[in-house]
């Protein structure tokens, strides 16, 4: 798709934009578009994209989803998601092709002052959060896909939890694609956590099997002092779809952020998680699990930026690669000069189930302080043959033995998912998908 086509789509979308949109957002869109048009899509010459070519996205022509799709969506649209998570949530917002589908959503009863709503609605009281934070956490100057999202997002979710408020039931933001060929959606999520607030947010992404579309999402998370957020991203797009997603977290003093990224679908997937620990005593957990098979490609890039002293970060990413799939992991940890007494630990493991699967894995530590603890470990390997034989010698069949061992491998990440319903939902999908991957092998 030529960049001109994006310009044309941008101009076409302009009159449809929400009337309530603050002028600042409009200016940001213009600026983001010109930045995107100037730089274009990243190429593999760009260090950040060295092992992930987005040529397949760049060479296609995608059109924005029509504004009426979400209104017309039937309840059955939700069945496209393989994750059986029902009953686990207090609020469940459904977005179809990036737009809020009110008829399919349940906001539920929420504590006073809590907002869980469409980003484009601009209802009374939510403008503050948007005005102060939207576009302020995810920088688009050097991130082409963030620029693209900023220019094009039509809707998305706003979750705002005021100070000293605890939302006990998790919030589900369900993003569904109708899977029309060559359609693109750029949903935006803004999560604003007030001081000492607490909550859990699950974002899930799915589309109909075999559909070829493009999802480009940006999530911005602003965490006030001592706030606690459990964030989940469950990605199960169609195996022919493109998914580019970035989560940017800015955490204040003593905030505690956990991110759990589960990536099971998509033909070409890139997940970025960037957490800036911008206050003393912050804690950050980044965990990830991906399963990739066939000719699919999944790239996880994480950055933990220790900007202030006495922050802890823990990171475990695990990948299971089958067929001719390709995985990329890049885990950057920055420890700034002020960030004394940083305690950072990163683990990254990949399990290769076939000779043709490939992983590029790179820890990147940039340490500018001298009194810090920073460890990282990376390992790539195949299933332990002795363990397979041991299980078989007890009567467990070859396929099941492999299953058991792969699950044990994934367990490090799965067992750390605090929401049981999510853990169960993910395990079920993982089981089914492993069955297919192992059968194909």
């Amino acid at each position, binding site marked *: 798709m030529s960049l001109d086509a994006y310009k044309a789509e941008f101009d076409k979308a302009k009159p449809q934009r929400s009337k309530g949109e603050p002028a600042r957002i409009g200016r940001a869109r213009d600026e983001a578009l010109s930045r995107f048009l100037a730089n274009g899509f990243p190429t593999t010459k760009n260090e950040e994209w060295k092992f992930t070519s987005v040529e397949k996205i760049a060479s296609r022509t995608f059109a924005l989803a029509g504004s009426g799709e979400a209104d017309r969506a039937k309840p059955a649209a939700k069945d496209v998601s393989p994750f059986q998570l029902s009953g686990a949530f207090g609020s469940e917002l459904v977005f179809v092709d990036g737009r809020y589908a009110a008829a399919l959503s349940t906001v539920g009863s929420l504590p006073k002052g809590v907002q869980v709503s469409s980003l484009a609605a601009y209802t009374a009281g939510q403008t503050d959060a948007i005005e102060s934070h939207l576009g302020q956490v995810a920088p688009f100057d050097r991130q082409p896909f963030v620029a693209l999202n900023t220019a094009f997002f039509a809707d998305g979710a706003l979750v705002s939890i005021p100070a000293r408020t605890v939302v006990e039931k998790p919030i589900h933001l369900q993003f569904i694609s109708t899977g029309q060929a060559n359609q693109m959606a750029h949903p935006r999520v803004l999560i604003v956590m007030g001081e000492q607030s607490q909550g859990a947010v699950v974002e899930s992404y799915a589309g109909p099997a075999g559909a070829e579309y493009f999802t480009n999402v940006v999530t911005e998370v602003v965490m006030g002092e001592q706030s606690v957020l459990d964030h989940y991203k469950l990605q199960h797009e169609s195996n022919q779809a493109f998914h580019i997603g970035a989560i940017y977290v800015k955490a204040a003093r003593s905030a505690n952020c956990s991110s759990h990224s589960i990536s099971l679908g998509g033909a070409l997937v890139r997940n970025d998680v960037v957490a800036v620990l911008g206050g003393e005593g912050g804690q950050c957990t980044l965990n990830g699990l991906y399963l990739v098979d066939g000719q699919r490609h999944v790239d996880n890039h994480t950055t933990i930026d220790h900007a202030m002293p006495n922050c802890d970060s823990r990171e475990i990413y695990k990948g299971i690669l089958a067929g001719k799939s390709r995985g990329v992991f890049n885990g950057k940890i920055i420890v700034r000069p002020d960030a004394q007494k940083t305690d950072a630990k990163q683990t990254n493991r990949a399990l290769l189930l076939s000779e043709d699967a490939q992983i590029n894995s790179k820890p990147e530590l940039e340490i500018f302080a001298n009194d810090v603890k920073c460890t990282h470990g990376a390992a790539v390997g195949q299933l*332990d*043959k*002795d*363990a397979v*034989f*041991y*299980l*078989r*010698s*007890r*009567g*467990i*069949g*070859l396929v*099941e*033995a492999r299953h*058991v*061992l792969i*699950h*044990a*491998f994934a*367990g*490090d990440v799965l067992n750390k998912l605090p929401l049981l319903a999510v853990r169960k939902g993910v395990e079920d999908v993982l089981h089914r998908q492993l069955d297919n991957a192992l059968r194909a092998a």
Partner: protein
Amino acid sequence: MLKVRNLHARVAGREILKGIDLNVKRGEVHAIMGPNGSGKSTLARVLAGHPEYEVTEGEVQFESKDLLDMDPEVRAREGVFLAFQYPVEIAGVNNAYFLKSALNTVRKERGLQELDAMEFLTLVRARMKELDMDESFLNRPVNESFSGGEKKRNEIFQMAVLEPKLCVLDETDSGLDIDALKVVSQGVNMMRSPDRAFVLVTHYQRLLNYIVPDHVHVLSEGRIVRSGGKELALELEDKGYSWLEQPAGAR
């Protein structure tokens, strides 16, 4: 029950077994002894179907079926059990879960009802008591951070739960202190029955003080060079294995 004829096997291109003949009947206990590198453990692993060992000649019949034709899991379901010399640590797999799946797979194969969680727990608790094992064992990952003795006891425990027909113990005694050895031996002795047979692979005669064999075979360079009764083990204890180096008239 087990008939081994002229068995040749190799691993990593090297021939280890060079024509083994062995006949094990129901209810019998056979001890296989021999110096390091004689092929004792290879024999045990070949019987269990270790994929890295290649049988190049000969045959093995188990209950009149061709054992060599079966995958390892099929052998286990038919009733062959190998207690590993070096039990494998399996991180992230809980002992109870592992054993329950194994037991139910084996039971299904034998036409028995699968056990539910409660029935399973009742069964394993009884077996653990007999083997003087702590119940916390069940919730730990398989063999992970077990001591050497705990690993060996875990093998015998699995054997007691799975109730195989043929139990092959590969140097289960090595590395055990005398107390653990007694517990392990007691476990084996409890399982002795007219329908079950044991093949004990061991380097030392000591084990045979506690588990009295019906037959003792001495393995050297991939062949059985002498067979006899339990007194043969005592003779070995006295003389060591050095006499094997002069094979004249050994057979």
